[in-house]
């Protein structure tokens, strides 16, 4: 900015000082550089780790693109929790910093770097797609930034893996949602133990779908079960009739599927219009197959489907009833599983902050405090597995039924305290 100051000075002294183009470029780029330096933007950031100071939470969520509604759900959960806690966690006033990854991995990685370098957030949360969680893992780990994953369920994020490929656990990474093992292996184990041993697989052909199908198969095999074949439509496939036709032309009646959102709706509708229920086929799946976003569109077409998940809006416990009521007071809709994941992430952060008196400056102490967190969540008992930082949680076996005109997931059984094997 020197050039401009000199110019003013020159004007005051009564003679004109003409700025040449070169001087202008030098001066303005120096000014731009100064503005880019992190210190210049957030001069107080270096001291923000102390108790009583503002707590910045960087939330990386999709607000545009295919997963926009998941991002909206998780933002609602964050705002609800902060409203209930008077915008404070422990003794720290909270400033959420939202960034939109638009379901593009590169955009999300850049936003994470901005959280680290420019915003200097104290804690990072969010992340919907697993590839993005894997993509930011090393940056978060290197920066020793506490990151609470509130959705992405890829197993490797909280596991020991060879050469950390595609990802691996970090002391600074916690997960408040689930690993794909947790929503797939237990139901395979459960069904085969009950005597249903043969399954045909149908899953969206991408990392998470194949992982879920593989974990389910491992669960089946534990009790001598087996799979007889599979169909794997690409993720976001528009027409499901070809795949359901393949299912109808093979003899195994029990079908385990992994689909969510639009894919789940397309699958269930084709399943019915091609007459699979009448032909004796039975639908099983990971819980996202029959979550509210899907049920409100397909309604009783999903009746009889058996799925597993760590939560259901109908779950009968005091915390869940209060959570659902509080949420509905704030928003004119039912909470979904993504809301619960984010809400529990906020709760875990809150509890850990209280344990350290709001002081996040000692990272190891703060990590220890998070590891020790345990509370009653809407999903049941919530605690982090100290070795993996993945939650230890109950998995519910649910059956879709239409009761009083409402299509819901009824809880038919519970598999207690499921934890990820960690490797």
């Amino acid at each position, binding site marked *: 900015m020197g050039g401009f100051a000199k110019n003013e000075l020159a004007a005051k002294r009564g003679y004109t000082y003409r700025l040449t183009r070169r001087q202008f470029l030098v001066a303005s780029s120096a000014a731009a550089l100064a503005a880019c330096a992190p210190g210049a933007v957030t001069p107080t950031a270096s001291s923000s780790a102390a108790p009583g100071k503002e707590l910045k939470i960087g939330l990386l969520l999709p607000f545009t693109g295919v997963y926009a509604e998941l991002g*909206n759900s998780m933002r609602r959960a964050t705002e609800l929790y902060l409203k209930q806690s008077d915008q404070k966690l422990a003794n720290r006033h909270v400033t959420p910093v939202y960034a939109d990854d638009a379901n593009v991995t590169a955009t999300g990685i850049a936003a994470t770097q901005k959280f680290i370098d420019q915003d200097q957030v104290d804690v990072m949360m969010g992340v919907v797609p697993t590839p993005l969680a894997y993509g930011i893992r090393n940056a978060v780990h290197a920066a020793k930034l506490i990151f609470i994953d509130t959705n992405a369920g890829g197993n490797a994020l909280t596991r020991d893996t060879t050469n950390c490929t595609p990802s691996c656990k970090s002391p600074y990474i916690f997960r408040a949602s689930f690993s794909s093992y947790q929503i797939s292996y237990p139901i395979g184990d459960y069904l085969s133990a009950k005597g249903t041993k043969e399954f045909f697989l149908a899953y969206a052909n991408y990392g998470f779908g194949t992982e879920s199908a593989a974990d389910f198969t491992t669960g089946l095999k534990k009790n001598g079960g087996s799979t007889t074949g599979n*169909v794997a439509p690409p993720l976001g496939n*528009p*027409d499901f*009739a070809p795949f359901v*036709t393949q299912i109808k032309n093979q003899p195994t009646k029990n079908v385990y599927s992994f689909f969510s959102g639009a894919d789940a709706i397309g699958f269930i509708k084709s399943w019915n219009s091609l007459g699979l229920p009448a032909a004796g086929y039975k639908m099983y799946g990971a819980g996202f197959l029959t979550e509210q976003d899907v049920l409100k569109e397909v309604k009783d077409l999903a009746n009889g489907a058996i799925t597993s998940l760590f939560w259901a809006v109908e779950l009968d416990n005091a915390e869940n009833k209060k959570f659902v009521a509080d949420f509905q007071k704030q928003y004119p809709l039912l909470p979904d599983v993504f809301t619960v994941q984010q809400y529990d992430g906020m709760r875990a952060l809150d509890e850990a902050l209280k344990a350290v008196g709001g002081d996040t400056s000692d990272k190891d102490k703060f990590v220890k405090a998070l590891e020790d967190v345990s509370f009653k969540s809407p999903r049941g008992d919530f605690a982090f597995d100290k070795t993996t930082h993945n939650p230890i949680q109950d998995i519910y076996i649910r059956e879709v039924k239409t009761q009083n005109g409402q299509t819901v997931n009824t809880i038919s059984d519970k598999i207690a305290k499921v934890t990820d094997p960690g490797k």
Partner: protein
Amino acid sequence: MSFELVFQQALNGLSFGALLFILASGLSLVFGMMDVVNLAHGAFYMLGAYVALSVVQLTGSFWVAMLAAPVALALLGLLIEPLLLRRLRGRHLDQVLLTIGVSLVIVDVTGQLWGREVRSLSAPPGLDGSVALIGGVYPVYRLFVMALGVVLAAAMAVVYRRTRIGMLIRAGVEDAQMLGALGVDTNRLFASTFATGAGLAGLAGVIAAPVFGIQPGMDTDPGLLYSLVVVVVGGLGTLSGAVAGSLLIGPADTFGKVLFQDVALAVIFAIVALVLLLKPTGLLGRIRVAR
């Protein structure tokens, strides 16, 4: 594959192809007439689906939506052509860029107005059941879609070949300047062509909704992606090209995805590459003289 399975998958492929034809016909028409690759076509399709959703919620009738959505989109096209596209006439690349801009605006406004949740539409009463066919039951709606595709193609062929407006369109495709010199109001002709293209996208939005669903992102996949594939393979800008393209891509996509599921997404693009390599104008495309 057993005979029953091949038969059922062929039906799936043909009904998918019929949907693709309804989707791509508007894009093909606008390109043939105006030499504009309308990259907002997918966004028009998406908007048509959301308009249909609202109309069904208001009136409870799929059939009303099937009229209202194309009309709404045609009106939008009637605004966009004179206000925006016409100013860039003759500057093809600028027009293409403009249509990208239009699609971004439409997609964001749609998200704001209707939200970003996944939605769906049911087939209308009477068409929501299934009928017995070889190898089991088959959804009536998909048979209806096939019939509609055939009717639409036939109607377009008749208009194109047998009516005055069709004659004007054919003349416009050959040489719009000369047509103008002969005293035809080409502005009006172009505006109504663009509106028809947008209306066809709106129709596709309604008809495809019970099968493909309604969700953010539908403007590019399946919307723009499949319609571009169909017109590129079939031949840019000709009705017969759009028919040939959808008849090839529909079944190819269906059989490709179940037979080679690990390379499912590559199958149709392999076809695109092959066709472009052997016949750069597409299967039934005309050789265009650079203007």
